[in-house]
């Protein structure tokens, strides 16, 4: 199958292509130098933007918590449903769409790779079963390792290499992609009804602090040569004054960074950029965070942009979800995953007229605009925590147009409007920066060599948007931009045209990416470990790992570790 995308304005930040008219040739699912123009299917992209397929670094799309969220919220399905068509299958759900719908909706926006950021290792099989059912996109998942008893115990004893071997074993067993830390230490403390507030609080019964966990796993990450950095959901998330914790978290791995390479990814940063002593004195801490990030190169962030809508919050951060339940009085799921992690789900409605919610909306955009380098901050809504992923086109419009921001500013809580820094920010991003923040930067941060760019040899994941950068001024015509990014003119997945004018043309299976971490000597499964499995887990050691045949389209990425 050969494909030629002609005359489009190509934005490919990883190869520094900045809106030049270039043809993209595709053969056998890869980008190639050239194809035979007579044999190839030609797509005329004149007057349109061509970008690599979108990459989402953080979006809860699969797994046990997502499914529990679906069970908790039948009313979320009631208001949004898609009937089946000759090509697509039916589906329901607005903030937590069903598996097929998730894939279709991403593809319609031109996204082709999505990372699910929180997989409780015990529930890995469930996650992969859902991955098998999510069409159109490539996906991967990060196992939650920050509160796993093995990690806590080895780090307490300072056995970094031993810990690294177990982490490698766990990544292989769960077919995961990166190390995810959620409220490090806090989840274990939550098992005892407590939480940890700052980086030097002790985790009960483990004599270890969040700082030691973060630093330890950062070292482990480096020893294992994992492509992505540690993916951190900070302590104290969602509480006023927590920007200090976020800064501390970034600072604590400063010395572990190798030059110019990021060492830590702070996810949904909006939720940890709160200033103030309580909700009344709540303020934006975006400026301080942006200042730090602008001066340091070892951090990457994603936005976690709030969208004013009814959504469902779900994180592994059990104590935070409990706070949210108390704040909102909504229904709540709380879950403790044995020796590994916890979880919580609360439906939540972000309202324009609420001071806190409106300021949260502002903080997300402030971060994205105040951080000068688009390679350091990426577009996300922490789907579905701050809003469903279908709102990405709105975020793009807000980032590209001051006018669009002002329009929303007019409608929000007046006190939040007067406190918002957005009124003083003139910056408007261009398509090149948007391409960086929605695909290239994310692919780079994830270490995905074949994604997020259109160079020779890259996976042929391409999205085309019907907007002409020469004639359209995104600053004024932000509605055109929003419409274009909502319905991609064309999405190409692995060299096949799967979406045209926002309609799904064919249902294709996406691959599941996972890391095949090769340590010099494999983890010895000792009798001690087996004893622990039978004592602490409900699942026996033999039944625990996800084997490769479990994954329908498996795409392992080999990584050679230093241990």
């Amino acid at each position: 199958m050969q494909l030629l995308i002609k005359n489009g304005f190509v934005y490919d930040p990883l190869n520094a292509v900045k809106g030049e008219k270039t043809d993209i040739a595709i053969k056998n699912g890869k980008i190639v130098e050239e194809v035979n123009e007579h044999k190839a299917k030609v797509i005329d992209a004149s007057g349109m933007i061509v970008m690599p397929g979108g990459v989402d670094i953080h979006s809860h799309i699969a797994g046990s918590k997502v499914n529990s969220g679906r069970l908790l919220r039948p009313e979320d399905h009631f208001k949004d449903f898609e009937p089946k068509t000759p090509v697509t299958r039916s589906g329901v759900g607005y903030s937590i769409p069903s598996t097929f719908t998730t894939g279709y909706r991403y593809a319609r926006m031109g996204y082709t790779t999505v990372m699910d950021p929180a997989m409780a290792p015990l529930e890995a099989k469930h996650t992969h079963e859902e991955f098998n059912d999510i069409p159109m996109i490539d996906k991967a998942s990060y196992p939650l390792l920050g509160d796993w008893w093995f990690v806590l115990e080895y780090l307490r004893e300072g056995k970094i290499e031993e810990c690294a071997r177990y982490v490698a074993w766990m990544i292989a067993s769960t077919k995961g992609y990166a190390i995810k830390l959620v409220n490090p230490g806090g989840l274990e403390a939550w098992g005892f009804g407590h939480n940890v507030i700052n980086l030097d609080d002790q985790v009960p019964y483990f004599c270890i602090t969040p700082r030691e966990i973060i630093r330890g796993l950062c070292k482990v990450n480096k020893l294992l040569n994992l492509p992505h950095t540690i993916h951190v959901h900070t302590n104290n998330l969602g509480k006023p004054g927590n920007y200090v914790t976020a800064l501390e978290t970034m600072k604590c791995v400063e010395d572990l960074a190798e030059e110019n390479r990021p060492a830590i990814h702070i996810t949904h940063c909006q939720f940890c950029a709160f200033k103030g002593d309580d909700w009344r004195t709540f303020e934006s801490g975006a400026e301080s965070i942006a200042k730090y990030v602008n001066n340091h190169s070892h951090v990457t962030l994603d936005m976690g942009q709030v969208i004013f809508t009814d959504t469902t919050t779900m994180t592994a951060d059990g104590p935070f979800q409990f706070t949210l339940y108390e704040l909102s009085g909504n229904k709540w799921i709380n879950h403790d995953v044995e020796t590994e992690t916890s979880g919580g789900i609360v439906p939540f409605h972000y309202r324009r007229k609420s001071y806190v919610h409106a300021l949260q909306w502002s903080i997300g955009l402030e971060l994205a605009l105040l951080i000068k380098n688009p390679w350091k901050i990426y577009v996300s809504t922490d789907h579905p925590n701050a809003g469903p992923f279908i709102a990405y086109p709105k975020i793009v419009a807000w980032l590209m147009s001051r006018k669009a921001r002002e329009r929303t500013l007019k409608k929000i809580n007046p006190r939040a409007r007067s406190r918002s820094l957005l009124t003083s920010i003139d910056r408007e991003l261009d398509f090149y920066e948007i391409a960086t923040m929605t695909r290239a930067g994310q692919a780079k941060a994830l270490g995905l060599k074949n994604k997020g760019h259109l160079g020779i040899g890259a996976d042929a994941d391409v999205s085309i948007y019907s907007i002409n950068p020469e004639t359209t001024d995104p600053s004024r015509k932000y509605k055109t931009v929003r419409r274009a990014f909502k319905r991609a003119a064309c999405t190409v997945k692995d060299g096949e045209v799967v979406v045209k004018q926002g309609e799904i043309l064919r249902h294709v299976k996406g691959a599941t990416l996972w890391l095949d971490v090769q340590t010099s000597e494999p983890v010895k499964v000792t009798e001690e470990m087996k004893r622990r499995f039978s004592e602490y887990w409900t699942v026996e050691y033999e039944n625990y790992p996800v084997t490769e045949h479990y994954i329908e389209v498996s795409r392992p990425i080999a990584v050679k570790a230093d241990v």
Partner: protein
Amino acid sequence: MINLRPKKEFKLPIIAERINPSVFEGKTCDKIADLKLWEGNKPKKLGELFKIEDTKMKNKSETTAIVIHGDLGKVRRIGAGMESGEITIYGNVGMHLGEEMKNGQITVHGNVDGWAGSMMKSGTIEIHGNVGDYLGAPYRGSSEGMHGGKITVYGNVGNEAGAHMRKGVIKIYGSAGQFTGFRMRNGIIYVQKDCGGRTGACITGGTTVVGGVLESVLPTFTIESIKKKAKIEEGEIVETPFYLFLGDLAEDGKGKLYVAKEKNPHLSYYEKFI
């Protein structure tokens, strides 16, 4: 006035939100016959399932009215989201009658299945028969209950009538099932006859008036006083002594529960706490 009669006895559920004065408005009989309904999993035209007659109205300014004769026990979502007009039904009706209706009037001379007036915003529903469960209650999982309007039932009602209610009036001149007014926030529910158990569970506001027997009041309610009468709405006052309970304290609620004193001698031991 549009007259509809089912052409056959329906065996499969019919989804008929298009039987709706707002949709019929300004359409001729032929166009109405072309409207899409679902019978089971097959799309059908309204004209295939119903006989349609247009009776010329004497007064042109009268709003669109629909009259249906026949058994509609399998027909769901009649008048869903309607904004104006009138529907009169002589026969039984299926689930979700007048769901999310915004205005207008529905009158039923027959029995109605569950979720009648579910999530309604305004308008009136009058039912001269019995009603199933979840009268005026929201869709499963949702807390957006009835936001306004008025439902009057002259028969008996199933469980969870008026769940999550926020505003409006529900009057039941028969008896009601369990969990009447579950998680109610505001508005008023009047049950003239008996009421099932756990009435007012988890309410945080609003008023529930029980004119008949209430087996027991939840332990999370506290007695406030004895009132001589209870006001249902403008022009309707029930003049008989009532025990007034406040609750649900488990939810820190300030809802009112009136229970007729004479019909409930077993509650007299509460009097010593006044």
